[in-house]
């Protein structure tokens, strides 16, 4: 069994996001970038399955600018066997990513495609689902547990009502939740070895896919600042303020 894992390069989750002055996006110059956190879980799960002898190869793929190579390299350092970088410039929407991934899937013919449930930069939560539709493969989203049973997948999903367990046929798409596992650290010797693992570089334009954005971005703004709270001395005062000032009761 072969597993393809999609990883995205995003602004590190510890960095405070700053909106560009001209409201066209957020500042990314000199900002620490990292792998999208749930994508780390996706890689970890794929590597675990391989270590358990249930998969033969883990391939990491990233779509983005040249520097997304670092993200692929990180995946190689924690156990992926080889990498693919699809180079693009500018904003690339989930539909375009899904179409590019479809091309990669047709080329690589994996049995499973793993990725994070959503990216922490645009919060779209669409790529896995769209890829599933394009390929006409079954999907399991928000996976918090994955088991391979007789060539099928048993996936536990975190949903509002609790935990839902479903069984799907392979080949399939699985999008991963943060609770799926605890990603390992990349050790120094493994980072060294990862430098020698192959990364195939492709240009998005060579894959014959229309990746022009379908959404027009009007502007990006910071959320409004929260006003400081006040202390009230009694319940009566609270009720009075809720009624007359906040006008919520």
């Amino acid at each position, binding site marked *: 069994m072969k597993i393809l894992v999609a990883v995205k390069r995003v602004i590190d989750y510890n960095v*405070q996001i700053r909106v560009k002055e001209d409201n066209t996006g957020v500042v990314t*110059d000199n900002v*620490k970038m990292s792998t999208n956190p749930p994508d780390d879980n996706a890689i970890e799960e794929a590597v675990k399955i391989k270590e358990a002898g249930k998969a033969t190869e883990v391939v990491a793929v990233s779509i983005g600018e040249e520097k997304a190579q670092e993200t692929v390299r990180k995946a190689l350092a924690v156990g992926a066997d080889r990498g693919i970088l699809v180079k693009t410039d500018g904003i690339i929407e989930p539909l375009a990513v899904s179409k590019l991934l479809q091309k990669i899937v047709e080329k690589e013919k994996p049995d499973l495609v793993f990725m994070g449930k959503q990216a922490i930069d645009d919060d779209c939560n669409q790529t896995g689902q769209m890829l599933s539709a394009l390929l006409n493969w079954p999907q399991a989203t928000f996976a918090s547990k994955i088991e391979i049973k007789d060539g099928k997948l048993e996936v536990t999903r975190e949903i509002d009502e609790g935990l839902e367990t479903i069984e799907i046929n392979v080949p399939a798409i699985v999008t991963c939740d943060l609770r799926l596992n605890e990603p390992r650290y990349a*050790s120094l010797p493994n980072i060294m070895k990862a430098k020698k693992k192959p990364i195939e570089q492709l240009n998005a334009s060579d894959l014959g896919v229309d990746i022009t954005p379908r959404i027009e971005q009007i502007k990006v703004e910071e959320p409004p600042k929260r006003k400081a709270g006040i202390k009230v001395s009694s319940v009566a005062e609270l009720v009075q303020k809720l009624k007359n000032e906040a006008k919520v009761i």
Partner: protein
Amino acid sequence: MSRETMEYDVVIVGGGPSGLATAIRLKQLNSELNICLLEKASEIGAHILSGNVFETRALDELIPGWKELDTPIKTKVTKEKFLFLGKNKSLSWPTWLLPAVQKNHKNYIISLANLCRWLAEQAEALGVEIFPGFPASEILYNDDGSVKGVATQDMGLDKEGIKKDSYEPGIDLIGKVTVFAEGCRGHLGKQLINKFELDKGKDPQQYGIGFKEIWEIDEKNHEEGMVMHTAGWPLDKNTYGGSFIYHAENKQVFLGYVIGLDYKNPHLSPFDEFQRFKTHPAIRKIIEGGKRISYGARALIEGGFQSLPKMFMPGALLVGCDAGTLNMPKIKGSHTAMKSGIIAAETIDEHFKLKKDLSIFEEKFKNSWVYDELYKARNVKPSFSWGLILGIIFTGIDQILFRGRMPFTLKHKHADHETLKPANEMPKIEYPKPDNIITFDKTSSVYLTGTNHADNQPVHLKLKDPNLPISYTLEKFDEPAQRYCPVGVYEVQNENNVQKFVINSQNCIHCKTCDIKEPSQNITWVTPEGGGGPKYGNM
């Protein structure tokens, strides 16, 4: 589980200007060398904080053609000002009366973090292996006592030091020579200085704490290339310190404050002095209408010539501010740090090729311009222990008339942890509340540093005696850690009338001030799990 071992010709600890300069020069001298460079930050530059007005002298020697390359050195200094601040007034000091060391017309306003990122690219292109996110936590020794290399931090230990599922043991990195370039108060450098008595016969080291904020300001207040320094208010005459305001590119201003850690009043809060400083009319008018986009703090070394330890030992060299090569009157240390790295590389090259002992570093250093600079600068900082006015008068005579060649050397008398007076003998200081426009509290500031440490890991700020903060330091000094820490790591909490000392180590920005200033030297800073700490952008 036994640790894996990796062998190199040279292991470099720290990816700042001195470590990167060492790596680049080594590869230029001998491209065959296997060199690895460890950095505790999640990426090169993320733990670098500096003014910075950059003198290019060392870079001119290291990479002579840098001006033709796409470097982050872009903003030439075009204008200079020096202000003495009173509470509401300011007096401009004519620049022709400034000592030569404080003139900056040939220098550039840069982000040192970005310069380090660029230097790291140059080093990697030459074949240096750079590993960010791997703190060197331990020194390894050979049987004969010489330095063998370093071990990296174990990853995946919980609060109690018990292995989690993700446990990943550290690695032994063995170097024929190890270069320590951790910056001011490096935690391994500190151990080496003790073990090899590198500071024998030297004055106690002197430190300062430096704050920096980056502001995006109104176009009409911005003068790209302008460098301004101030002395005086809000500090009293007996506290050493001053500010910098550098107008960088993209309407940004680098605004900072440095306070000598030899201050005496335990009620003093360096953070609040910095915040208060911004409310001075001469400063407020620059940043008013602007927006603060970054914050950070870092200890720096001020001891200079008198306190500079021996920089070589069997198997290892100590470079940059891990030793203390900053030139205080010049308010610059990047060029001297880089030069010390270049000298280290040349020493190691001769050590390998000609079998010379590492002690040849000393002579090379003495014959270099760094030594000359530090020698001439040596009397400035100690003269300020007489107060601001006498310090300025003496510095004028020493630097302008004698050009640093007075026939005597003033001493640094005390280490910084010895200077605090008991709390009940010193005046309490009332600091104004932050307005969240010009001035801010520590909580909103720490948020801007991007600092984080994975939770459930051992506390990396170790107390030798866990009871001392409450039983002694609180009573005698009103526990100054609550105030000298720039991000509020230390708190004294009252729970049911019982006082408790709390360490919020996840907020730590690796400035090392506690390790320096704690009056009983009760706090030791050790490396947390790799990648932890601030995520500075263009600091």
